């Protein structure tokens, strides 16, 4: 209890954490709000109102089909969160399991894991994501898969590194001596102790995943229209750059703020949880 209180106290004074948390609240809050309310229908077409500048009824103006840009950005937050969160959860689930397994088993498992991580890291991520989306077909689900694949080795490596250190610790040795099996030790002793690393890494990966989702949907490989997604909005906006340049500003700003929030939150968490954490940033 008091540990949490101390943490909360320190967190409140940590600038980066505070800004990050605020931005994340704004981001998640917008997505949540858009489930119940948007100023206009995000998919309501009104050709007579196309490419309108900002006004009292359309705060951020309208797009090429006369749809309200603000509403689309709000709903776009759902897409970003859904794709990002799923991709990270999936990648983390598989990656943590593999990393923990490698640390517990060592030997060929460890070797195979590090070879295959090397392999995935050696590929240009964007290119492979495009290929994967081309093989599976363009959809939000397949964007999740393409992004998740790159999260697996990240979490596997981080988990393996942290877990290996844990296996050398006395209390783990004691547990081994007492005859506890590797699975039990991993679940009871190792994972709880590497959780903080994973939380921080997950925050950063969430940010990276949102960037990746934007990139894929910019290339037409993410969520399918008319479902709003920020990357796709940017793609459309580029066509109208001479008529309505502001269309290219808002979705990009939304992406940047969401990613910024998560990055700052991640940095803050790292400072608060363990300033010595070594993290990976793979984009």
């Amino acid at each position, binding site marked *: 209890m008091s540990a949490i209180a101390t943490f909360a106290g320190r967190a409140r004074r940590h600038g980066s954490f505070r800004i990050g948390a605020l931005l994340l609240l704004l981001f998640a809050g917008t997505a949540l709000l858009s489930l119940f309310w948007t100023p206009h229908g995000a998919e309501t077409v009104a*050709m007579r109102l196309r490419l309108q500048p900002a006004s009292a009824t359309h705060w951020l103006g309208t797009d*090429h*089909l006369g749809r309200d840009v603000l509403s689309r950005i709000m709903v776009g937050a759902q897409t970003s969160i859904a794709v990002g969160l799923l991709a990270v959860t999936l990648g983390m689930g598989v990656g943590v399991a593999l990393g923990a397994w490698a640390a517990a088993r060592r030997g060929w498992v460890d070797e195979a894991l590090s070879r295959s991580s090397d392999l995935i890291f050696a590929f240009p991520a964007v290119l492979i994501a495009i290929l994967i989306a081309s093989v599976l*077909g*363009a959809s939000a689900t397949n964007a999740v898969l393409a992004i998740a694949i790159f999260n697996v080795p990240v979490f596997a490596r981080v988990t393996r590194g942290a877990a290996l250190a844990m296996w050398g610790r006395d209390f783990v040795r004691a547990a081994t001596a007492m005859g506890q099996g590797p699975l039990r030790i991993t679940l009871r002793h190792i994972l709880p102790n590497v959780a903080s690393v994973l939380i921080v890494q997950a925050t950063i990966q969430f940010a990276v995943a949102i960037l990746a989702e934007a990139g894929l949907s910019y290339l*037409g490989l993410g969520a399918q229209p008319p479902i709003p997604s920020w990357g796709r909005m940017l793609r459309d906006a580029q*066509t109208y750059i001479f008529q309505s340049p502001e269309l290219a500003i808002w979705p990009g700003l939304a992406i940047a703020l969401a990613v910024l929030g998560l990055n700052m939150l991640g940095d803050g968490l790292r400072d608060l949880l363990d300033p010595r954490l070594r993290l990976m940033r793979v984009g």
Partner: protein
Amino acid sequence: MPASNRRQFLGASTALIAAGAFGPAAWAQARDRVVIGMSLEPPVLDPTKNAAAAIREITYQNIYESLGRIDRTGGIVPGLAESWTISPDGKTYTFKLRAGVKYHDGKPFNAAVAKFSIDRLYAADSTVPAKSLYTDIESVTAVDATTLTIQLKNPNSYFLYSISLGDAAIQHPDSAPTNDKTPIGTGPFMFKERREGDSIQLVKAPTFRDPGAIKLNTVTFKFVKDASAQVNALLAGDVDTFPGFQAPELVDRLRRDNRFAVVLGSTEGEVLLATNNGKKPFDNPKVRQAIAHAIDRAELIASESGFGTPIGSHFPPHNKAYVDLTKTYPLDIAKAKALLAEAGVPNGFEATLKLPPVGYAQRAGELMVSQLGKIGIKLSIVQLQWPQWLSEVFRERNYDLTIVAHTEANDLDRYARDGYYWGYDSAEFKAKWREVVLTTDFAKRDDLLKDAQRILARDAVNGFLWQLAKIGVWRKELVGMWENSPTPSIDLSGVHWR
């Protein structure tokens, strides 16, 4: 044929390179060269090896010639053949070939060469993309050096047109194998060099029979995929013309610049909401008619910034055999819902709309979701790359609805084909089309074509949306560019600077 419209007629034109910025000398020098912007790059440069329209745009009438040629009005005029006669039974064509024509490498053109080239089109082992246009040929005979006869299995009122297309380019047996990379033809321009992904350069051919008629010495085709980059290339003077400008939403920007002429012309491209007639519930004509009643063409054309002409059947409005059928199914939501109820789906249904990666399809796709949504048809969009569209939609017919432009001229025959991707199977239409093909009296054929259009409109085979406009942009001083696009060709033989 839809595949080529990804490589749609891109026009070509020329512009003075940074005219005015250089002195008078540069100006004078610039008057014999032109830089033509195209949005799609041709893969190979041989129309007998690949179906891409961009190949024909660059090579047809510039590098290669055919026996006849399609002129700017869509009419057929002499090409490598000076004249021809057709036997009374419509089955024997005798071509009188031009004498003294040379290929760019100096080799002579004669009837034997023509026979070689035409034999390749319909041969059993032919890999020519348009082979199906030429399968009515029974035999080809080189009677003497300048006389060629072609014997058909049955009369074909489109044969002269087909043999005049870029697909029937007359190639020399020696250069045919390498024409994909280094094309050699009889036309006014010869291939000089290519930078893949960037540009192709042609120069005036010294071997051409009438060099005085050709005013340009250097022609550069430059590939600029993105619409806003096309505008920039024009504004910066890097490109003199985009004969087939692809971004209607940016035309305003160009109209504001008085250096350019923006010329609207016609194309042979009908944009369709292509419908899988073989699949439930689209096999029910009432469902297709309901969709037709729900389509708001005015809104669709507005999203093309107003460029496009509404159509009510599969036929170009500028053709003299056209009948206006756009009022067959007026916009009427109540009527559409009633038809759906009659068809047994009063509450609508869910369906997918698979879209190819072209601007008009993307724009119209989102509108279609909204328009059909009003009568309870819930569409979900799936964006496909062209190869996927070709395999999944076109070949495997694994789709409900798609949006695509059919850009060939005289392409009504698709509705008479068995196993075509629309799954339309009408004995009535097939009989009508057979009549069209066999009727060599063109006035009579026009009447039959009108009947054919009416059958398609009545059956609401596809959603007939609009006829694509050709938006040509060129420097005002550039003369002789084609306003219309009767066939994929950026014919430069008559182009010059004022």
